């Protein structure tokens, strides 16, 4: 096995695992690595190096797509730290469940009224909530060796982040039809 192929996503970029990532720095590392590993650099190489290059460039793309977005980065960190998010979490806080229902209702009302300012305001609110959860996640799970209790709280923050993201996507998907 190739050493680099076995590495986690952060190590591939020469970075330690953390939620607080400078995405500009990550992109520059990605670009320089891709300039080196991309199959276009191996067009004249042996079949073996060509195969290896495809595998590594693919892994690099995957790692970059995961780490460059806070939501997928958070999920990946939880997976690495043995607290993988569940697809149908059973232990959600009742307050959060109520909040989900309220937010969905609020969106329905805003959407029906069709007031562009209110729609924009609603989306801005979701973005603020996402930022707040990202800060919470960072506080709890940014560094290695966090306590289990903290990781569990981080996972709850992830669920909220994920819900706000989906709600925001719904809003954005709906918008073009209004024009």
């Amino acid at each position, binding site marked *: 096995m190739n050493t680099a192929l076995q590495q986690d996503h952060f190590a591939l970029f*020469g970075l330690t695992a953390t939620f607080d990532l400078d995405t500009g720095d990550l992109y520059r590392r990605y670009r320089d690595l891709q300039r080196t590993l991309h199959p276009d650099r191996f067009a004249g190489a042996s079949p073996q190096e060509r195969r290896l290059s495809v*595998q590594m460039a693919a892994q690099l793309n995957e790692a970059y797509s995961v780490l460059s977005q806070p939501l997928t980065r958070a999920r990946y960190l939880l997976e690495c730290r043995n607290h993988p998010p569940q697809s149908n979490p059973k232990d959600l806080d009742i307050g959060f469940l109520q909040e989900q229902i309220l937010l969905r209702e609020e969106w329905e009302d805003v959407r029906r009224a069709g007031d562009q300012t209110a729609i924009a305001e609603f989306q801005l609110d979701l973005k603020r909530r996402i930022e707040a959860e990202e800060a919470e996640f960072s506080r709890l799970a940014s560094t290695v060796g966090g306590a289990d209790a903290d990781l569990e709280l981080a996972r709850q923050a992830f669920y909220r982040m994920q819900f706000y993201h989906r709600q925001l996507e719904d809003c954005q998907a709906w918008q073009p039809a209004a024009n």
Partner: protein
Amino acid sequence: MTLLQISEPGRSPEPHARRRAAGIDLGTTHSLVATVVDGRPETIPDADGRVLLPSVVRYLADGAPAVVGDAARAAQAEDPLNTLASVKRLIGRSIDELPEFANRSHYEFAAGDSIMPKFATVAGPISPVQASAEILRALALRAAGTLGGAPEGVVITVPAYFDDSQRQATIDAARIAGLNVLRLLNEPTAAAVAYGLDRGTEGVHAVYDLGGGTFDISILRFTKGVFEVLSTAGDSALGGDDVDARLAAWIRAQAGLGDNLDHGAHRQLLVLARAIKEGLSDHAEMEITLSRPSGENWLGRITRAQFEELIADLIERTLAPCRQAVKDAGIALDELTEVILVGGSTRIPLVREAVAKFFGREAHVEIDPDRVVALGAAIQADILIGNKPDSDMLLLDVIPLSLGIETMGGLTEKIIPRNTTIPAVRAQDFTTYKDGQTALSLHVLQGERELVRDNRSLARFELRGIPPMVAGAARIRVTFQVDADGLLSVSAREQTQGVESRIEVKPSYGLSDEEVESMLTAAMDHAHEDMDQRRLRELKLEANQTMEALTAALAKDGERLLDAGERTDIAGALARLHGLNQGADETAIRGAIDELDRVSTVFAQRRMDDAIRNALSGHGVAEFSGDQDA
């Protein structure tokens, strides 16, 4: 790491010897070939100075070579059934997918075993892949004149929206034409490369590419030599041909011609419509003269406004993909730096108006929209063949359509979503649904729809030998890998017991290996050579390439990355392959290639790790853990 300089084993390397590379735009209505001369890409004309080669192939009786280009196009009306045009619309497809081919009798189709359609011609049944191979061969021949020999490698462009089957079929056509394909390059990306080199404007660009038979829209970012495709969308059956058909139908109705035109008259009408369409790009009105079957002439006229009304909905159809691509790229329209027009159909004024209105700005047309794709392909070919070792250009493209697998209830589970950067690899776990189930049938699909029957079926294969377990206990990991040409390979593996089954996906509508082989045999250039000879020749070529690449790598990194014992092992395997490659024992040569591959694995990995370290060295805190014991 820079590109490897390669020389024949035993010959002294000539550092400045240029290798012969060409870029080919294999288009629906016409094709071009280009190459880099003195650092600039140039399209290569034929002896009469014509750059565009009509993508028309006429087959002749009695084994006479097929005629390609202007002469074939001129014979369309006279010999319609043996003169094939717009075959790109059928490459990698079944007839049923294109009503225009199924219902309108442009051609006659031969009955065949494969789902791929074959035209019935005097030279026998001909597939779109074979006809495309004739066009590629004609272009390669043209390039050979300028390059001073046959191209050693080519980049062939394909519509960004081409699916796996269409890409695979294009590769098959190149194989039949005897070409070494360095890369399949997406047409809008090729155009962006040509513009990037020419103008160097950094930012996020939209490339609107309306050709003879396909439409692509790509949104890409260009910064510091990197072309990064953010999203792509399109319609692989929409283009100038549809405009011609609309106009032809209008003329037919106006002239009072019935619906029962013969093949020749129909083709003649299409040729006329095309000329009128082109005229209406420069004139507000055109006169139409049509010679009716009875011999008398029909005279008519059409204004640009009338023409625009006829085709308005076709142009409108390009805007939904534009909207989709902009949305998928996650940008706002005002964040776009430039809009670039590509493809002959963008000469239609209505197209330019629609694009300007949609994007809110005038589009760029500084580079001839017919040539820009071939120019970009030539630049890429020049780099891939190794003529520009210092180039830092990097193309990061995406897959246009999601790839997935059929799950219970006829639903499609996406594994790699559209607009994922390639190369890409992604795995997903599946499980059994019956107790004691020992086999799993996998159906690989491409498309965005939820139901299996609405997506394209790429392949079916089975994973057998799963140990009997209760339903839901097995863990079957299905891995999709897409290479830089956008081609998929799939493997599946039962996790707990490690039973492995692996396939390379071949398109359902493509050709079997046997069919490709028989077409290779039939191909004109190789008529004197039988299949065994050809296989041996290709094997020897592969052996040579492997030895050249490894020799160059050893010269560069051998001392640094290998110990004496490792170097001896590799040198021994190299010498054995070199010796056996002088002979004609296929099995022995294949064995020696595999052996060389095996003993040099560790070297390849160390070189890769070393390259990674170098790439990261300028980035400070490089806590790179990929250490090795060399």
